[in-house]
C-alpha cells in the first residue's frame, strides 16, 4: 500500500525515484520543442543499435492543435510526458511498470488495470512498435510499446518504451476534474500553486499564437531551412579534418529534424497545410529522421564497431 501523493510534482518525483531505483539513468528534458517524449534523442536515436540503454525523463511536449486557451479540463497545447526506455526490454517490464503505478499511489487491489491492444506508429519518425494502452478503471494512463523499427531500421535488440501522460494520470490520482485546479506543489506550502497558476496564462497566449499569429511564411521558410541544414550536416565526411577523429554529427542533424517536425505541427495548427500536402510534409520529415538514424548507427553509441 502506498500513500497517496498530494501534488503534480510529487507524482513526478515519485516516478523519478522509482525508475532511478530500478536502474534507469534519470535524464533531463531535451532542450527543444518536441511533440512527444519519443522525439528526445534518448529514445529515438538510443533505441537504435545494440548498445544497452536505460533512461527515464520528463519531456515537455507541444501539440499546437490541442490548444484550448486553458479552458478545456483535459486538453493542453503544452503538457508533460514521462518517458522510460530500456534496451533490451527486460522480461519483467510489465511488472516494473505496474510497480511504478503502485509508487504513485495506485493500489492494484482496488483498481482495474488492463492492457488493451494499441499499436504505436510514428509516420514522421518512420517508427512503429506493438504494445498496449494501459487502462486504469477505463482511463488510458500510459502507452506501452515494444519498438520494432525506428528511422526505418529494425530494432535489435528491442527497446521497451513506457509513456505516461502526466497531467491526465496525476488528475486521476489526485481526484481533480479540471487540470488547471490541480495542485502543482504541496497544497499546504506557504505559496501553494495550482497547475493553472503556472500554465493558464501561457496556454491562452500560445493558443492564440498557434492558431492565429504564428507567421506562416516565416515558418514555411524555417521548415525548408531546417530540412536543408539537416541534410547539409550529414553530407560532411565522417572524419573531422581538424581533430583527425571520426565524428559523425548525427545529433546536430537530428536537432534539425526535430525542428522541422515541430514547425510542421505549427503549420498544421495554422490550417495552411491541405490534406494532400500533409502527407508530403510528413514524408519529408520521415526522410530526415531516416537519414539521422542511418548516421547514428554508424557511431559508437549507435553500436558501430570502432
Amino acid at each position, binding site marked *: 500500500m502506498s500513500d497517496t501523493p498530494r501534488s503534480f510534482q510529487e507524482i513526478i518525483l515519485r516516478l523519478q525515484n522509482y525508475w532511478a531505483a530500478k536502474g534507469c539513468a534519470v535524464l533531463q528534458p531535451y532542450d527543444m520543442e518536441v511533440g512527444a517524449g519519443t522525439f528526445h534523442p534518448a529514445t529515438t536515436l538510443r533505441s537504435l543499435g545494440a548498445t544497452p540503454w536505460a533512461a527515464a525523463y520528463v519531456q515537455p511536449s507541444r501539440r499546437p492543435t490541442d490548444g484550448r486557451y486553458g479552458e478545456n479540463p483535459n486538453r493542453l497545447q503544452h503538457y508533460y510526458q514521462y518517458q522510460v526506455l530500456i534496451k533490451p526490454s527486460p522480461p519483467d517490464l510489465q511488472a516494473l511498470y505496474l510497480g511504478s503505478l503502485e509508487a504513485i499511489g495506485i493500489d492494484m*487491489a482496488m*483498481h*482495474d488495470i*488492463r*492492457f488493451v491492444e494499441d499499436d504505436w506508429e510514428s509516420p514522421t519518425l518512420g517508427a512503429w512498435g506493438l504494445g498496449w494502452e494501459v487502462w486504469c478503471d477505463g482511463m488510458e494512463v500510459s502507452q506501452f510499446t*515494444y519498438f520494432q523499427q525506428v528511422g526505418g531500421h529494425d530494432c535489435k535488440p*528491442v527497446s521497451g518504451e513506457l509513456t505516461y501522460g502526466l497531467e491526465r494520470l496525476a488528475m486521476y490520482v489526485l481526484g481533480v476534474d479540471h487540470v488547471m485546479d490541480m495542485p502543482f506543489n504541496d497544497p499546504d506550502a506557504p505559496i501553494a500553486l495550482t497547475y493553472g497558476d503556472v500554465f493558464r496564462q501561457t496556454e491562452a497566449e500560445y493558443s492564440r499564437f498557434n492558431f492565429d499569429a504564428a507567421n506562416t511564411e516565416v515558418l514555411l521558410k524555417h521548415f525548408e531551412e531546417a530540412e536543408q541544414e539537416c541534410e547539409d550536416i550529414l553530407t560532411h565526411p565522417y572524419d573531422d579534418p581538424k581533430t583527425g577523429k571520426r565524428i559523425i554529427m548525427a545529433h546536430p542533424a537530428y536537432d534539425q529534424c526535430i525542428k522541422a517536425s515541430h514547425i510542421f505541427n505549427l503549420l498544421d495548427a495554422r490550417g495552411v497545410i491541405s490534406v494532400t500536402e500533409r502527407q508530403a510534409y510528413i514524408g519529408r520529415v520521415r526522410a530526415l529522421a531516416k537519414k539521422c538514424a542511418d548516421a547514428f548507427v554508424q557511431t559508437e553509441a549507435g553500436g558501430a564497431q570502432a
Partner: protein
Amino acid sequence: MPDLLIELFSEEIPARMQKRAGEDLKKRVTDGLVEAGLTYASAAAFTTPRRLVLTVDGLTEESPNTVEERKGPKVGAPEKAVEGFLRSTGLSMDQLQVRDDKKGQVYFAVIEKTGRPAAEIIAEVLEATIRNFPWPKSMRWGAGNLRWVRPLHSILCILTREDGAEVVPLSVDGIEASNTTEGHRFMGAGRFTVSSFDDYVARLKSDKVVIDPQERADHIWADATNMAFAQGLEVVEDKGLLAEVSGLVEWPVVLMGEIGEDFLGLPPEVLQTSMKEHQKFFSVRDPKTGKIVKFVTVANVETPDNGATILAGNQKVLAARLSDAKFFWENDLRVATSGIEVWTDKLSNVTFHNKLGSQKERIERIAALSRKLAPVVGADADLAAQAARVAKADLSSEMIYEFPELQGLMGRYYAEAAGLPAEVAAACEEHYSPLGPSDDVPTADVSVAVALADKLDILTGFWAIDEKPTGSKDPFALRRAALGVIRLILTNDLRLSLDYFFDAQLLRHEIEVTDAEEAELLNEMLTEVSQHGVLGSALRTIIEKLDGDGPAWVAKLTDHAPDVSADLLGFFHDRLKVYLRDEGMRHDVIDACLAMPGSDDLTLLVKRARALNAFVATDDGVNLLQGFKRANNILTQAEEADGVEYRFGADVKFAEDATEKALFAALDAQQSAISSAIEAEDFAAAMQGMAALRAPIDAFFEAVQVNTDNQVVRRNRLNLLHLIRETCLQVADLTRVEG
C-alpha cells in the same frame, strides 16, 4: 492413452486475435501429430488474454513402424537424377535396391521408419507451431529473435497418464517447457504445478481465471441482463462487443453504472457509440422510453469495495468523454440551426481524391445528378438536389470528426434541427445505404435519388480516372457501390437507362470548369446528352459546333469516354451476375438475357431473366428450347453452307406439305400474342406462346425435308425457320441457354 495439455503463456494478446489463435493452435498441433503418425480421440482449444490452451485427449503412445517403398530412376540414368533420389530418400547408394521393371532395371528405395514416442513428436510439432504461428502481426522482444504476438513467457506442456503427468521436454529460444503456470495477474497466488487438464481448469478457477471464452461471455451476459432486469431495464445486445470484452478479462466482474443526468439528452446513438468505442461499455436502455440510461462495464478484478472505486473511475472517464460529446453536439446544433450550408462550404477544403477534386465538388456533382434522377424515381427534383447538398454536411461537424461512424445519422439530426423537410433529413441518413448485401435498401423517393447519385458519382469518377478495383484491391469499395445501385434499382423497381446516367456523370468528372465560356459549353453538352442519351453523338454535335478549336478536354473526351461507360456497364453486369447467382439463377440464363438490347435497364433485364429462369425449368420451357434449337440449327447450317442469311420472304403460298402450312398458321396465330406480351414485358406469356410452336415444328420436321432440290421451296422453308428464330429471340438469346 495419454492426454496432452499445452498452455502458451504470454503478455496480453489483442482481443480480436484470440479466437483465431486458438483455432490455429488446435489445427497446427493436431495436424502435425497426425502427420507424424499419432492419432487422438478429441481436441479443444481455449483462450484468455494471456494464454492459448490446447487439450488433446486419447493420444497414442507412439507412432507406428512404417515401411515406404519409392520407385527411383532407371539404372544408368544420369548421375544427377540418382543423386537427387538419394537426397530425397535420405539413403546411400548401397542401401538402394535394384528391381526389374517393365522398362528395365530400376532403383527402389525401401524406407523403414521406426515408430517414435509421442513426447518426441509433440516437442517437434509444438516448436514448429510456435515458430511459424500465423499471427496477423507479431513482434520480437528483448534481445531474442523469437516472434510472438507479445512476449511469450512460459510453455506448459504435459502428457497425463493414469500414473501421473510427464513434462514434454522442449525448449524454444530459452523458454523451457514445464508443468507449471500462474493464475490471475492480481488475484492469483503465484506459480503452481499442474497434473492434468481437469486439474489445470480447477486450479486456475481457484486462482481466478476462466479459460473458456464462451463461459466468460455467458457469465458477462447473464450478469449484465440480470442487473438490468432487476431495475426494469434491458442491455442493448452487441455480440461483437461481448466477444471483445470477453477477450479483455480472465475473470469477468460485471458492474453497472450511471451515465449522469447531464448527458441523457444526447442522441442515444451518440451515447452508445461513445461508450462502446472509447470505453467498451454496454448500453442499458429503458424499454419504456427507448432511452439509454445506464452502462455496464466489465472489470477484470474483484475488489474489497465490490468495484466501487473502479465504477467511480469509469464514471468519471465517461463523464469527461460525454462532456466532449455534449460540447460537440451543442456546437453542432448551433451551426445547424444558423445555417447548415457553412458545413458544405467548408468541404471545399477537404480533398475527396486528388484527381476527383474536393468533397464540395463531389457534392455539387451528386446534386446535379440527383436532380436528373429525381423524375425517374418519382421524387421532387428540387428536394432531391437540396437533399444531396446537405446530405454530407455533417462531415464538417465536430461530432463526426470525433465519431466518423455516426456520419449520416448525425446529418439527419442536424437537418431536422435546421428545420429542413423530413424527406431531406431522411436522405441525409439513408443516402449511404445499402452498405452491406443484407443492409436495408431505402425506399423513400428522395433518399433513393441521392443514394443512387452518390454511388453513381463515385463509380463514374473512379472509372474516369481509371482506378478500378483489381483482384482483392478495392479501397474505395466500388463493388459495394455497384451492388448498392443494383439493389436500389431492383428493390424499387426503377426503370432507367444506366448508360445515359453514366455518360452524364462521366462528363461532370472529366471536366474541371473554371471559366464561364467553358461552363456554358459543358451545359450545352449535358443538354445534348440528355436529348440523345449517348455521349458519342452528343460529343459530335459539340465538336461540329466548335469547328475544330475547342478546349483541350473535348479532344480528351472523344478518345475514351464512350468506352469507359461501356466498361462500367460491364462491371455492373458482373456484379449483377454474382447477385443473381446467389439467388440461384442459372448462369446461362443470365448470359442469354445480358445479350439482349437494353441491358442497361437492370429492372427489365432481371425481369426477363427471372421469367426465363422459371420457364426453362418447366415442360413448356423444354418445349420452347427444343423447338427453337431444332429450327435454329438447321437454319444456321444452311446459312453457313450457302454463305447467305435467310431473312425475308417466307410465304405460305409456297408451302407444299400440310405440316408446313400448319406451321405457318401456328406462327401467324402466336406472333401477335407474343409481340404484345413482349411489349407488355410479360415474358412468361411470350414464352408460353413460343412453346406452343414446338408441336407444329416437330410435325414439320417429321414430314418435311427442308433441304429439298426445289430451290424455291427450300428457300421458303429456310425463311420460315428464320421467322421462328426471330420470334423466339425476342425474349432472350436462346442460343446461349443450355439444354
